[in-house]
């Protein structure tokens, strides 16, 4: 019984990781850059939700929509201001810029909200579900539902819409896509928008679970989700989903059965092993290097 409960816990945090990892993987697939500021968008999402609910007293639905809007606009702005001028620059320059953006968001949050953690009680009031001896909390149910809906919508969007196929084309070959009349810059902006929107949702779910706001709250889930994206094969959306869920489950099980302190080491150790066997991740494409 305990095993199943741990499994459910793992799947819950895993689905949050998956939502964040999708953002990493989509941006990587299209812009070929690691967006280190992605984790901090989660933080911005969490703080905006706090402002809209606790300070402005908006109804939850409006607050959630506004939070998603804030993060989406932030994502697009960051891309336009900081990353777009560096499209042709070496990848390390972009990486350092992304780290700069991450520091910037964190220090802004530090200036506005100070370093002391702000308690924030969850607004999700769904009764817990009892199946036999297993109790599934309301937040867990909401997390599963929201994540599943997001993933289905995203899969449909990528595979069925025109913008979705434009995104796939750009990630396949930027120049060829441009020759086919696809607006590459707009496609990249849309990718950032979707990634940031998913990060906002992840931030809302995350803060509903951990109920404490800190300026650095996005860093660790950000790094773990990035690991999850690499785990599943960076650039692959199903891979990010799988990687996120697996990471959550491995973490939860090793916390419960091996050691709480060593859980991170185990997660990262498994990642290294997976990459040694499959260098491009679980579902990643193995690209042959062209000369």
């Amino acid at each position, binding site marked *: 019984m305990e095993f199943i409960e741990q499994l459910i816990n793992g799947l819950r945090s895993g689905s949050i990781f998956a939502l964040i990892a999708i953002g990493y993987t989509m941006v990587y697939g299209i812009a070929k850059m690691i967006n280190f500021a992605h984790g901090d968008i989660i933080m911005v999402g969490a703080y905006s939700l706090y402002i809209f609910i606790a300070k402005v007293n908006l109804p939850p639905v409006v607050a959630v929509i506004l939070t998603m809007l804030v993060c989406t606009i932030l994502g697009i702005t960051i891309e336009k201001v900081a990353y777009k001028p560096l499209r042709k620059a070496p990848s*390390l320059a972009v990486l350092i810029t992304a780290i700069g953006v991450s520091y910037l968001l964190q220090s802004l949050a530090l200036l506005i909200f100070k370093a002391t953690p702000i308690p924030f009680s969850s607004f999700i009031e769904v009764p817990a579900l009892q199946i036999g001896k297993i109790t599934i909390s309301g937040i867990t149910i909401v997390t599963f539902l929201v994540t599943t809906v997001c993933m289905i919508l995203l899969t449909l969007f990528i595979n069925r819409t025109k913008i979705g196929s434009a995104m796939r084309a750009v990630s396949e070959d930027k120049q060829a896509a441009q020759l086919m009349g696809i607006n590459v810059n707009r496609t990249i902006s849309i990718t950032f928008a979707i990634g940031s929107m998913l990060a906002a949702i992840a931030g809302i779910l995350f803060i509903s679970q951990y109920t404490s706001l800190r300026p650095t709250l996005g860093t660790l889930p950000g790094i773990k989700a990035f690991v999850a994206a690499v785990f599943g094969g960076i650039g692959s959306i199903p891979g990010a989903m799988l990687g996120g869920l697996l990471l959550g489950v491995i973490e939860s099980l090793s916390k419960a059965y091996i050691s709480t302190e060593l859980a991170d080491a185990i997660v990262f150790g498994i990642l290294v092993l997976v990459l040694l066997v499959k260098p491009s991740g679980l579902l990643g494409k193995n690209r042959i290097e062209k000369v």
Partner: protein
Amino acid sequence: MNGMEKKGNRNVLIKSVIALAAIILGYVAVYYMMEGGILSRQMTSLIPRIGINIILAVSLSITVGFLGELSLGHAGFMAIGAYASAIFTTQAAGLPGFLSFVFALIIGGVMAALFGVLTGIPVLRLRGDYLAIVTLAFTEIIRSVINTMSITGGAMGLSSIPEYANYTWIYIFGILTILVAVNLKKSRHGRAILSVRENYVAAEAMGIPVTKFKILAFTVAAFFAGIAGALYAHTYSVLRPGNFDYNKSIDILIFVVLGGMGNIPGTIVATILLTYLPEKFREFGDYRMLTYALALIIIMLLNSGEMKEKIKGFFRKIVPQGKVKPKKLQEKKGEH
């Protein structure tokens, strides 16, 4: 023929003498500035930190600058060196201080180098961002293992490590690191490493054992990071696992990138400035980090090709020039 060779040798000799003189002069100058009260107390206390950061940055530029592989795990190697040496000096109390510290430095460096080889092995199969994430993973593994072991003091860390290190030790090892890096770049091995960075397929086709040189670069970098860790442990006498997290690796990486990726003098200047300035503006509190972040973004943007062209174009309008330099062929990277 013989005469020319002699002349060449003499030139090398003169250069070496000048370099040696500069090294000694630099040592004496900084020493007198510290002792003579020219530098403020705050600055004097910063000197060891600057020295250790220079060792870290110069050694990281071997992997990032020369080899061209992104490493996000330099703090991990530093942690290994710091803990290994500190455990040695606190356990082996019988030895005289000097000898104990020499052994500790060697142990710190060698242990870190061993882990460098360990991390270097995945390099056989991974490249680019995948490699970066593996180095990050290694640091996190090292940190959480240090956090749980009893010999390392767990989350409490180690304290009352003897303060053997001082300005002289740090200076000697700083110079040693710089000399190794500069000479490596000029040597046959160094050129092989550079060729791997430029085009590893071509390098492999020319018969360069790519794997061997990647591991070599990783090991040398890790060795000096270990030395830096040992110096750190014996300067501040307190170690916490949190000192060596991923942010520390990022800080070192920023020194290297802003210093010009493999440009050793640039890296040193960037390290000195970026260690000194944040301390200098400590009174601004939280705004300091904000400024640092903004500066980072702006420097990277101004340094990018597009912006450079715009700025050049702007100046060309103001100052008409006769000659226009031919544009360099733009290299396409990561496009497929």
